[in-house]
């Protein structure tokens, strides 16, 4: 059982999804999906412990050795990410019951939960696999699930949002496919470890360069790096609350992970930053994205949309960390991947609770929330403080490391940009807090959200605070992962 952990994370939801789809009603599909996602979390945590104890885990699918078979390869970086994905899924699933009942409807519930399971399994698969083509397959599984999930949103604009994401996402996925093809034709392998071994010898060929460009562009589309982020705001705004929470917390993060994997493990930092102008391309885009998306989010009347733009901005921080090309920068990026997952998950779920009671997530719905829904409101405040990067929250920890990495390189303008981003966050979070604190509630009789929504929200809020204080777990793993990745190639 323990040796099959890497595949169980993916297999359990894969087997459960069709069963869930065939069930009737809302309760049973929900129950099964919840249990399965808890099981996946258990597997992921055990994997992380195992990696900490024994180092890299290699699992060969069906006993076929790589490069003939597909292998799963778990090191610190993806073990951490697996915990994030399954952890968020485990919190979102119980939360989904009421929220989905209201926003999606009971009759579509089985399909919804099946798609949600497929989404989380796709993300886990992308993370766990050690095969470049397998990444594409899981990428498309998660993307297709995402398209359908977004389209289940209540607003009819969910349909158009889903459609434009489908077009952009498919183009991104196909770009990735082209890049993989070019690498395959040069190396004759799709196994990441083998790719990493064989690429240095032929790294000056233009085919490899083209492949690199296609892969980076394709992934940047999926991770919504400015200016390839256009699909994200609508997709996040109009999808059901539970979906937004899971997507916002994990989907773009997995794409970030794939980028890190290719840049550091497969191509190696020397190639990516030495032979290719990756830093010169990514840094301006990250900076512009960070500043422009933060600025745009200030003016949004819909808070969900505001947070969506904030997600684009936060991706800017992460990409900045990657583009630094140092162990410190990579540590900061990985930390922020995890930490931003926690805070955005919490914030989007809080908005889901507002949606449940107030029927919308506009600023006007947030008025006077401190009186009518205090627990929801204070959850939002703490999540917002974490987003700003106030001490004792996870946001502070990742911002600290990011600034430390920039100072280490002597990149003072980048330090200023990071701080400017935080200031803009103060403004857009402050706007909502002020409305909630001082505004007159539209309907003072509305009550606090039900416990089944609040408990998952507060679990994540506590995680935000806990990992902001006790950083041993996250920082140590991120540092170990960065060291592994910086070593280039794959640790055998």
């Amino acid at each position, binding site marked *: 059982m323990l040796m099959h952990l890497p595949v169980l994370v993916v297999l359990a939801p894969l087997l459960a999804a069709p069963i869930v789809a065939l069930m009737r009603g809302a309760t049973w599909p929900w129950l099964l999906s919840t249990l399965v996602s808890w099981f996946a979390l258990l597997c992921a945590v055990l994997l992380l412990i195992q990696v900490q104890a024994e180092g890299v885990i290699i699992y060969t699918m069906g006993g076929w050795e790589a490069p003939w078979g597909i292998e799963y390869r778990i090191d610190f970086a993806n073990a951490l990410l697996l915990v994030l994905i399954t952890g968020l899924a485990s919190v979102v699933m119980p939360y989904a019951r009421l929220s989905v009942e209201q926003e999606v409807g009971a009759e579509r519930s089985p399909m919804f939960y099946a798609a949600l399971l497929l989404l989380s399994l796709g993300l886990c698969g992308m993370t766990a696999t050690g095969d470049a083509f397998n990444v594409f397959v899981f990428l498309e599984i998660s993307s297709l699930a995402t398209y359908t999930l977004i389209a289940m949103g209540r607003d009819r604009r969910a349909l158009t949002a889903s459609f434009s994401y489908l077009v952009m996402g498919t183009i991104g996925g196909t770009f990735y496919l082209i890049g993989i093809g070019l690498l395959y034709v040069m190396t004759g392998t799709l196994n990441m470890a083998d790719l990493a071994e064989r690429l240095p010898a032929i790294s000056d060929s233009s085919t490899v360069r083209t492949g690199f460009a296609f892969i980076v562009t394709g992934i940047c589309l999926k991770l919504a790096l400015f200016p390839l982020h256009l699909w994200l705001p609508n997709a996040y705004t109009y999808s059901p609350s539970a979906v937004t929470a899971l997507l916002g917390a994990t989907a773009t993060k997995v794409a970030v992970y794939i980028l890190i994997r290719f840049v550091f493990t497969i191509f190696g930092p020397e190639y990516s930053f030495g032979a290719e102008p990756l830093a010169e391309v990514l840094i301006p885009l990250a900076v512009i994205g960070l500043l422009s998306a933060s600025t745009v989010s200030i003016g949004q009347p819909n808070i969900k949309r505001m947070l969506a733009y904030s997600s684009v901005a936060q991706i800017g921080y992460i990409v900045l960390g990657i583009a630094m090309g140092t162990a410190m920068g990579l540590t900061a990026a990985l930390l922020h991947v995890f930490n931003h997952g926690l805070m955005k998950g919490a914030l989007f779920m809080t908005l889901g609770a507002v949606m449940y009671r107030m029927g919308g997530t506009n600023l006007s719905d947030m008025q006077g929330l401190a009186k009518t829904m205090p627990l929801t409101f204070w959850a939002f405040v703490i999540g917002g*403080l974490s987003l*700003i*990067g*106030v*001490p*004792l929250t996870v946001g502070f*920890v990742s*911002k*600290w490391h990011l*600034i*430390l990495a920039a*100072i*280490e390189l002597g990149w003072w303008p980048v*330090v200023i940009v990071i*701080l*400017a981003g*935080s*200031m803009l966050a*103060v403004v857009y979070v*402050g706007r909502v807090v*002020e409305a909630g*604190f*001082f505004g007159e509630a539209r309907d003072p009789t509305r009550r606090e959200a039900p416990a089944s929504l609040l408990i998952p929200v507060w679990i994540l809020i506590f995680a935000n605070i806990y990992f902001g*204080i*006790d*950083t*041993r777990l996250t*920082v140590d793993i991120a540092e170990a992962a960065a060291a592994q990745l910086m070593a280039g190639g794959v640790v055998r």
Partner: protein
Amino acid sequence: MTANTALILTLLTPLLGAVLIGLTGRWPNLRETITMVTALSLFALVIRVLIGLNAGEDIGVELFEVMSGVGIAFNTEPLSILFAMIASGLWVVTSVYAFGYMRGTNEINQTRFYVCFALALFGAMGVAFSANLLTLFIFYEVLTISTYPLVTHKGDAKAKAGGRTYLGILMTTSIVFLLPAIIWVYAVAGTLDFVPGGILEGNLAAGSATILLLLFLFGVAKAAVMPVHKWLPAAMVAPTPVSALLHAVAVVKAGVFTLTKVVIYIFGTDYLASVPYESIAVYMAGFTVIAASCIALRQTNIKRLLAYSTIGQLSYIVMATMALAPFSEIGAAIHIAAHAFGKITLFFTAGAIYVASKKTEVTQLNGIGWRMPYTMAAFAIGALSMIGVPPTAGFVSKWFIIAGAFQLDNYFVLVVLILSTALNAAYFLPIIFNAFFKPEDVKLKDHGEAPPSMVIALCVTASLTLLFFFFNGPVLDLETQLVGGMP
């Protein structure tokens, strides 16, 4: 109880107090009793820590590590115990005062007020006892955030605008200047602990040290050196007990306290003296002293006048700290105490005047001295202390700062001090004169003194201002340890 236990309890007590106050909000009497008990026990705990420090006990607690080599840790030294004593001691007095004020003006959300007040004290205690810059920064932010609901207490448009300025400036400066400064120190020194003599020597190029110093000077906006002072007048929309304890003592003193800690324990006075253009900080502070006094001269609202006076007085402390003479360091530490007693008295009187007569403007105070003799006498004592006239507390600290100026032959400091004394006299003395010797011309309502709890509180602080002149020996002995004994 060991001193270490007491140290931890100084943090837990206000926190527990906040929770209990929140739970007992429905019963005002019980709520206020708890506030009082919390304040008293906090003061007692701080005294226990002081005794431990004087007895040479080894005091220091590390809770957990946040970054490698830096954790949430607490300890104490002469400066921090002084700050903690003042903040916790005056909280007791302020609580007595607040009961009268809040009931006298029928304020809304009184429970929230007392809860946030206790949280602010939690922040102040954390700032005082922090053993490294990270811990200090965390509690500095706790103090900022917990006081925001207090500043915006009234909830009207003016309070919201004031709150926005307050949070905007304090948050912006702390994130944009202070945080990178701290991370910079961490990056070059590998530690953030407060070590006598500093941790930066030999780790930083000379030019960078100047920039770092400026980052600290403007990052700690709570010290209100111009141009990051605007939040303090904005905070005056808060109820008077808040202005009195927090914006004359706890919050602003946390600012100058932080700067002094940074100068003595991060830079080290010897190293800082070798930093080129270090004196720029002295000039900035000196300019603030004069400019703030000039602005105060033109204020008509009592609380705004006091706010600008506070800005000037804070920069005294900053200037004295940055002057780097042993005497001026002692003067800076003592002025933290001296100004606290004087300014809290002045704010108490302003609040008492407001509660009794609804008057808020300086021009309305003619002849009020005979209606409120205790209050105005206290006002006179506080004002004399601001000017630095014996026998008040302000004289003691000014003495040391001037002595420091002579130690270094720093005539800039001397000129600033003389000029500001004149300006202080120019805006305080007419108020006292008019209050006692001009006939009453504005009459909003017939009134006598404010409620007794307020009068008692302001009399206590006024007496403290006087007593500090005569009995400052223990404080002096303590603070001379900062520079290794009396120079």
